[in-house]
């Protein structure tokens, strides 16, 4: 196996030649297809959490509504919007996502917008993102977690356990598409669980 980190001589020092890798450790996103359902690793998502500070809940929600060009997501919902999107995580807490290419500094951008109304935390490297897509996606999700996936509609978002990992499940548009955010440190385990469920259910 070739080393991923090399030391490159530069002048009279050596510097690291760092190569970005995806959550699963590859240089490109992993794609698996089973019986017409696609599991795609998505490395292109920047994330930041927004938690309203006590006494600033309304102002924080207003900032979020302004950002999303629509009301801040209510409990169990997400707002699918470009470039920034958001889902509800808890009372007065949301996760905001945006394309990594244009919003690598998403947390700093949000902090400038929200000011003292919210605590913003960088989340990009905390999560692995998988897009599960196909007409029989529901059968896979039913095997993975106790979420009532058939009752979920586009714009619904919830947290659940998949393979003992706390994950967010977002039903997107079109509705045969769910986005799964799981702990990045366990990306391999989550991917294994999803792929095993696909092979079993489909």
């Amino acid at each position, binding site marked *: 196996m070739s080393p991923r980190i090399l030391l490159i001589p530069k002048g009279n020092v050596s510097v690291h030649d760092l190569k970005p890798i995806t959550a699963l450790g590859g240089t490109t996103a992993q794609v698996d297809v089973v019986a017409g359902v696609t599991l795609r690793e998505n490395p292109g998502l920047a994330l930041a959490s927004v938690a309203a500070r*006590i006494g600033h809940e309304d102002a924080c929600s207003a900032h979020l509504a302004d950002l999303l060009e629509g009301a801040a997501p209510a*409990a169990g919902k997400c707002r699918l919007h470009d470039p920034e999107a958001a889902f509800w995580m808890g*009372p007065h807490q949301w996760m905001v996502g945006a394309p990594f290419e244009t919003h690598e500094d998403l947390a700093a951008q949000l902090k400038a917008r929200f000011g003292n109304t919210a605590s913003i935390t960088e989340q990009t490297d905390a999560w692995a993102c998988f897009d599960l897509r196909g007409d029989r996606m529901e059968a896979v999700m039913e095997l993975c977690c106790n979420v009532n996936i058939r009752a979920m509609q586009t714009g619904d978002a919830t*947290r659940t*356990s998949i393979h003992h990992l706390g994950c967010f499940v977002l039903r997107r548009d079109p509705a045969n598409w769910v986005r799964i955010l799981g702990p990045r440190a366990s990306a391999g385990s989550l991917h294994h669980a999803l792929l095993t469920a696909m092979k079993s259910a489909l």
Partner: protein
Amino acid sequence: MIINHPLLGPRDSAEFVYMGDASLIDRPDPDTAAPEDWHAYAYLRENVAGDMQELWFHEGGDRSWLVVTRNTLTHEISSVALARDVARAKGRSK
């Protein structure tokens, strides 16, 4: 067992962690409490046979703390509220 989350609806109790007697909300006032008050708060619990108010943490969900009123004889849950709202109604977290 199903817990009717006030915001998220019915959820499997496996998503929650039991955090004990809801009397933990009634923390003594640090300015006036005697050592006996702290001892009672930290160590003394009622062993209820009937409706009991309990704290449950939605660890596998939205991370909210709930006050669940559960009958310890039948496991029937009669009410569920956000612990935050219960505490604020008692004048806490001002």
